[in-house]
């Protein structure tokens, strides 16, 4: 029988994009910041997953980045949300609220 953790692996992956929108909405971050914030959660992930996802989101116009120099090596990309990204985040949050409500309320008498 599959563990809950395994069952949810596909769902977690799908939610990652939503979480990235939320993290990046709060402040300008670079990949190591994002990894750190996620590391303590069920959504802990790695650069190998994050970079392709961020590139895809940028291509879709959800976020953009700017270069900042770093004392500890090469310059870094700091990500921020575009207007479209914020709109997407708002919609997703709304939808997430509905799903949450459904999960809570369904089957209750």
């Amino acid at each position: 029988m599959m563990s809950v953790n395994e069952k949810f692996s596909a769902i977690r992956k799908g939610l990652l994009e939503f979480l990235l929108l939320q993290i990046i909405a709060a402040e300008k971050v670079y990949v190591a910041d994002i990894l750190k914030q996620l590391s303590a959660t069920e959504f802990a992930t790695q650069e190998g997953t994050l970079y392709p996802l961020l590139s895809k989101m940028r291509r879709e116009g959800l976020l953009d980045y700017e270069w900042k120099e770093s004392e500890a090596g090469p310059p870094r990309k700091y990500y921020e949300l575009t207007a479209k990204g914020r709109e997407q985040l708002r919609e997703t949050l709304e939808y997430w609220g509905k799903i949450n409500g459904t999960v809570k309320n369904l089957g209750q008498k």
Partner: protein
Amino acid sequence: MNKVITINLDGNAYQLEEGGYDALRAYLETAAARLQGNPDRDEILSDIERAIAEKFHALLASHKTVVVTKEAAAVLAEMGPIEADPGEAAAPGARGASGDGAAGEERAARSGGTPRRLYRIHEGAMIAGVCNGIAAYVNVDPTLVRLAFVVLTMLWGTGLLVYVMMAIVVPEARSPEEKAAASGDPSTAQEFIRRAKEGYYEAMKGFPDRKARREWKRRFKRDMRANADQWRQNWHCYWAEHAPFHPGMGYALPLLSLLHGGAKVLWICALISLLATGAVFGLGLPANVPVWVAALVLFIAYGIVACPLKVARHACYRGLGRPRWAWPVVFLLDAVVWLAVVAALLWLAVHYFPELREAVRSFPSLAHQAADDIRVWWNGK
């Protein structure tokens, strides 16, 4: 003991143990293969390279310059496998699957290859192949190098001197390997250009405000200067190690010192004559060239003459080899001869050329005048 390989990650050089290099190469090849068809492939790969570079950077310090195999493996494990299709569930643990690695191969090739060396090249040479060799080394047209030598020769024969020195010191490319190395793979000059093209302009586009851009520019320049210093250092070492000096030649040091001292005295006399009379040994300046520009040109010309002499002296010191006790003796002899030559020449110059004596006396006021010249020119701009 392990073999170390130098690689280029996003424009910076890192040294890896061979095992670590193999692992990194396999990782990047797999990444490139998995991202086949992804419109952001190149960008993701350069993001990945930059992230790895940052992790390597954090591992290294001034006393630790090599990333060992275990560390490289840990960094790659931390990076995690590249997931080609984000948003979709990827098969868990799918790793090391390598499709056609051709694209990755090409990227990896950029960081490997034989180091380029300076040789004289006889094919298509005019005289001894020095210019041809330099042209191949820095990857420019030989005609440009020849022109530079002609121009340098017009500056008090410097070009000729350098040419003769190089014709003697620089080895000729004879074997096919040497010929390949003469115009072969990565040189620092090429790396300069590659980095300038890729990193610099791409990054420039990404800066939103002028302050960040300026800051990055400053940093870039500093890095480039460090690179150039490294290059010069390598160049000196290369000459010093490969020059055909054998033990005992160290005793030619005083002669070299004599030449060096002579050059220095000549330079000082020229400078004084320039400041005193507005002409270098009777050679008048073109009308619109201010004195301080001419002084700068003199200084650069002196640097060009003195550099090969310095290198030759380095080589001599190396040529001394053992016994080590000879070093201080030769060094002392060298210093004494050098000082004596400078003192004697200066004394002679000042005593036999009244205008020089005059110049030495009036030097302070001339210096003031030069400073005023610069101020006027600066304000006028």
